[in-house]
C-alpha cells in the first residue's frame, strides 16, 4: 500500500447502469489489496479547489489494475465528473487501497453473509469475486436490495456465479419495480431473516448501503440474535 497520492490512468470504462459506471485504473506500480478496501480519489479544479471521495474497489486486476464502480449522485461534486466526463486515458490522483476493517479474505472463514443496498454492493462484489476466484468452500450468501432490475450492478456476472457456484446463494430484493415472477416492496425484517444464515451458524456479516439501510438491517440482525461483533457495516452516506 502506498500512503501518498499517486497518479493512476483510466485504462477502461463501461456503463454499469444508466447512472453508474465501472472505471478501471492502471497504477504505475503493482497494486495489491483485500476485498472490501477502498481508494480515495482526488480531483483538483482549475482554481485549486480539491475534493476527495472514497470508492470501494469492485475488482482486482493484478498486477497493475483495479476497478471501482461509481454511481452518479444528483448533488455530487465528484461523481458526475467520474461518471459522465472522465475518459479513457485520463489521469486521476489516487490514494490507497486503504482500509483494514471492512474486509474479507478467503482464510477469514465463514459462513459469509453479504447484504447490499443499492450501490453498497460494490465492496461486497469484491468479496464475492474473491470467494469465487479462490474456489472457497465457505458457504456464502448475498442479499442484494435494488430499486429495479435496471438499477442492478453486475447482473450478468452475479447470475453466472449463482448458477455455477453451489456454495453461493443469491437473493435479489426489488424495492420499486420487479421482473416477472417477483414482487416489489420495501425490504422487511422477515425477508432479511429468511435470506440470512441463522445466528447459530455464526456467519461473518457484512452490510453496505445507505445509512438508513445499514441501521435498519443491522438492528434487525441483532434482534434475531446475531452477535454485534460479527456484524461489520459500511455506510456510503446519503
Amino acid at each position, binding site marked *: 500500500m502506498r500512503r501518498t497520492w499517486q497518479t493512476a490512468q483510466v485504462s477502461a470504462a463501461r456503463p454499469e447502469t444508466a447512472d453508474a459506471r465501472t472505471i478501471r485504473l492502471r497504477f504505475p506500480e503493482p497494486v495489491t489489496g483485500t476485498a472490501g478496501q477502498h481508494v480515495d480519489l482526488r480531483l483538483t479544479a482549475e482554481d485549486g479547489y480539491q475534493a476527495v471521495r472514497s470508492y470501494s474497489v469492485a475488482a482486482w486486476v493484478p498486477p497493475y489494475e483495479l476497478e471501482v464502480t461509481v454511481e452518479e449522485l444528483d448533488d455530487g461534486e465528484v461523481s458526475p465528473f467520474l461518471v459522465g466526463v472522465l475518459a479513457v486515458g485520463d489521469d486521476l490522483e489516487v490514494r490507497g487501497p*486503504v*482500509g483494514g*476493517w471492512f474486509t474479507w479474505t478467503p482464510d477469514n472463514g465463514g459462513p459469509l453473509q453479504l447484504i447490499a443496498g443499492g450501490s453498497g454492493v460494490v465492496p461486497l462484489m469484491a468479496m464475492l469475486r474473491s470467494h469465487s476466484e479462490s474456489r472457497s468452500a465457505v458457504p456464502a450468501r448475498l442479499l442484494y436490495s435494488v430499486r429495479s432490475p435496471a438499477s442492478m450492478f453486475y447482473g450478468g456476472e452475479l447470475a453466472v456465479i449463482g448458477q455455477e457456484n453451489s456454495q453461493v446463494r443469491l437473493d435479489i430484493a426489488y424495492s420499486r419495480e420487479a421482473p416477472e415472477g417477483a414482487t416489489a416492496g420495501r425490504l422487511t425484517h422477515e425477508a432479511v431473516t429468511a435470506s440470512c444464515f441463522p445466528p447459530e451458524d455464526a456467519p461473518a456479516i457484512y452490510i453496505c448501503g445507505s445509512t438508513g439501510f445499514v441501521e435498519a438491517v443491522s438492528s434487525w440482525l441483532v434482534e434475531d440474535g446475531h452477535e454485534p461483533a460479527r456484524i461489520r457495516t459500511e455506510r456510503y452516506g446519503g
Partner: protein
Amino acid sequence: MDSTQEYSPDQEHVDGNALAGALDQFVADLTSADCMCAGCGTSGPLAAALLYRQAPGMVLRCPSCTAVLLCLTDQGDRQILTVDGVRRLVISTP
C-alpha cells in the same frame, strides 16, 4: 511530583529517538485499532465510529455518546491531528 521541577540527569531514560522502531508499527491500518472514548469509556474500532467530513477538518465521533474522539485537519504541507477524546488505542500486531 512538582510540575515545575527542573530536569536533572538520570540513568533511567534514553532519547525519544529510540521510540522510532516501536512507533513504526503504527503505520499499519489504524482504522482497525480499538479506540476507547475518553468521554464515556466505550470501546470499538475506529472504522465503526461516526466520521463527519463536512467540517473544515475531519471529525470522528464516538458512536455511543457522540463526543469528539479526534480531528484531522489537512493543511497541505502538514497534517494536524488532535486526539483529546481518545483515552486508549489498542493496535493488533500480527
